[in-house]
């Protein structure tokens, strides 16, 4: 009997060929089998070898996570699947752009908080800022929570992207 109790959150790093439909294959695998995607980021990482890296955060029991890893591995354009959460030490970062509209004391307070979160100001008008904040997802969320208590807020987040620590390099071929 399989475990249905212990739900965990894992960050998977998937190295794929940069070809049409590859993202649809990965996303379709999750939706078709009822798995969750908490966040997803994808971009070309090697123009010469035409590879992209997909970082996907998913939740499930250890069996489900293992199943997802296996299912991803069997896709033809997938070269490597790494469960960063289970594997060797790694770093994860997320970036958010946060627009806040406010005036007076709230405006000054939001600037002060932004400073303590090391957020950068990307844009400003007389009654608004756009901040750039980078860090662990929890930090980004905490910053957004604070901003929401100080004015009208609009958010764009990249989702988590991660990579292993140390001197190991993924090579395709």
């Amino acid at each position, binding site marked *: *009997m*399989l475990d249905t109790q212990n739900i965990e959150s894992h960050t998977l790093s998937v190295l794929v*060929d940069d070809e*049409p*439909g590859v993202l*649809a*294959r990965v996303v*379709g695998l999750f939706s*078709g089998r009822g798995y969750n995607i908490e966040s997803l980021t994808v971009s070309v990482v090697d123009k010469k070898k035409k590879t992209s890296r997909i970082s996907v955060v998913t939740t499930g029991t250890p*069996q489900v996570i*293992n*199943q997802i890893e*296996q*299912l991803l*591995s*069997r*896709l*033809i*354009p997938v*070269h490597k699947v790494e469960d960063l959460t289970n594997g060797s030490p790694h770093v994860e970062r997320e970036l958010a752009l946060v627009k806040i509209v406010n005036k007076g004391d709230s405006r000054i307070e939001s600037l002060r908080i932004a400073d303590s979160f090391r957020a950068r100001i990307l844009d400003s008008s007389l009654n608004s800022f756009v901040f750039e904040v980078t860090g662990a997802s929890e930090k980004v969320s905490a910053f957004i929570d604070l901003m929401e208590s100080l004015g009208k807020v609009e958010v764009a987040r990249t989702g988590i992207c991660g990579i292993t620590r140390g001197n190991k390099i993924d090579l395709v071929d």
Partner: protein
Amino acid sequence: MAEKLQKYKTKQIPGAELLLKCLEDQDVEVIFGYPGGAVLPIYDALFKNNRIKHILVRHEQAAVHAAEGYARSTGKVGVVLVTSGPGATNAVTGLTDALMDSVPVVCLTGQVPTHLVGTDAFQEADTSGITRQCTKHNYLVTKSADLQVIVLEAFHVAKTGRPGPVLIDLPKDILMLDAPYSNSPEIQEEATKRYYPRINPDAKAIKDAVRILKKAKKPIIYGGGGIINSGLKASENLEKLVNMTGWPTTLTLMGLGALPAEDKHFLGMLGMHGTYEANLAMYNCDVMLNVGARFDDRVTGKLSEFSPQSEKIHIDIDGSSINKNIQVDVGIVGDAGVVLDALISEMKTQSFEPNSTALEKWWQKINEWRSRECLRYKQINQVIKPQFAIERLYELTKNKDTFVTTEVGQHQMWAAQYFGFNKPNRWMTSGGLGTMGYGLPAAMGVQVAHPNSLVIDISGEGSFMMNMQELSTISQYNLPVKIFILNNEWLGMVRQWQELIHGGRYSQSYSASLPDFVKLADTFGMTGLVAEYASDLDDVINKMLETDGPVIADIRIEKEENCFPMIPSGAAHNEMILGPDDQEGAISESGKILV
């Protein structure tokens, strides 16, 4: 992809001709297909080609099933050619069937020219989008320079690892424009190197497995379709293992024939309509060796009570099958035949000896279960029992090299239970997807591959009518397929479930307005036969076998016969219904929601 060709000397030929050249390079002898606007260039190239035969089906779904029949009876890749839009969408059921049952098929679909893709052009469908989830892999060719490499990789992907359907979507301009072709032998290797599934097992896993096997007192071998897909060597290895251990062995629906049905170690098929002895041996065993099966829900029944006391070893070429439904103690990823080889040699190294005292006791227990004769039925009066019909068919054909296909439903289960398969690749049925209408076109594909063999489609009247347009194909090519219809004038399995679960409210399950099958045969220029009474049966079967061309045999069977034994849905292996006497209230409330 294109850059892979750059290293080699190429010549330019039109895409459609290049495609056929690539098929020839893959030793493709036959294509099952249906023409249309987008694939006209390929049909034109076929017109001038005398090496590849084309079988014109009457519906694209049938083309895929025919290719599946061809593939499963030969071990080669089946090839399908259909047009864009409706041609492709009609193929979807067949592709899904091939995916679920791991059948190597390459499906070529036409597409509107690249400059019209995305404009809702006539007969345009997003084929690569629609088929992404029902193929092992698919391609949309957007550059002529990619064509050869894609075709090479497609065949490699279809047949390597866990086999499956691969689709190539071909815009019409790609088919007409010149494309580079290289006959360099290295191009094959170059084109296929990015997909290399694991074939050889991990040595440590093999050692761990043998350690468990050595302890076994109540072992069972549970084999599946992975053995058949691996090739003849795997079946030979299975037989070797069975003889070396003396262990009881059961096979899934997809695995029938991997061990001869007549082998004394064979307990029959397991699962929902498997034998009592196979299911109880699964429930009570202490060591289970799964070779190339995937713990499908038809096999396991209630997961929480599946073989509760056993240590489990699972051999599968698809890593994602391991620990999917059932948690196992040792998972071995690799090709069934290769893994069995490794296992047998490691057993020898570890000087494996079966525990003969324990094994004798275990066989005693199994023989007790066997003595319940769970497949017994009574043929008392003149109404033909379906079990009797299949048994007679087996008896009268067993000295021939017979290939059997089926449709889906009660007749399929009776065929699995009462027809003995003594060789692999002789049994073609839709297991995973359960596609009614599979058997008739699959039988065509088998007959095309084995023109001189006896090919029988064991059918029900309901399933038969789902692809009966193929009678025309059978007639055109004079394929001597024998269509053996167990006709009970019901969608029998639906009727059975309505009886067991829905209080006998037979909603829409009666087969009304059936044709006269003898006359139907006649209109297609084939022989029609009918058996109404038990005493007619042998004569009808013999007449069917003596007839050179295709035959439809309408076997009028007992109308309300149920298929037993049965593990009711939601129940465990030890809760089987053996016959009509214990079916009352056998299905729990939670079982009723299962399919």
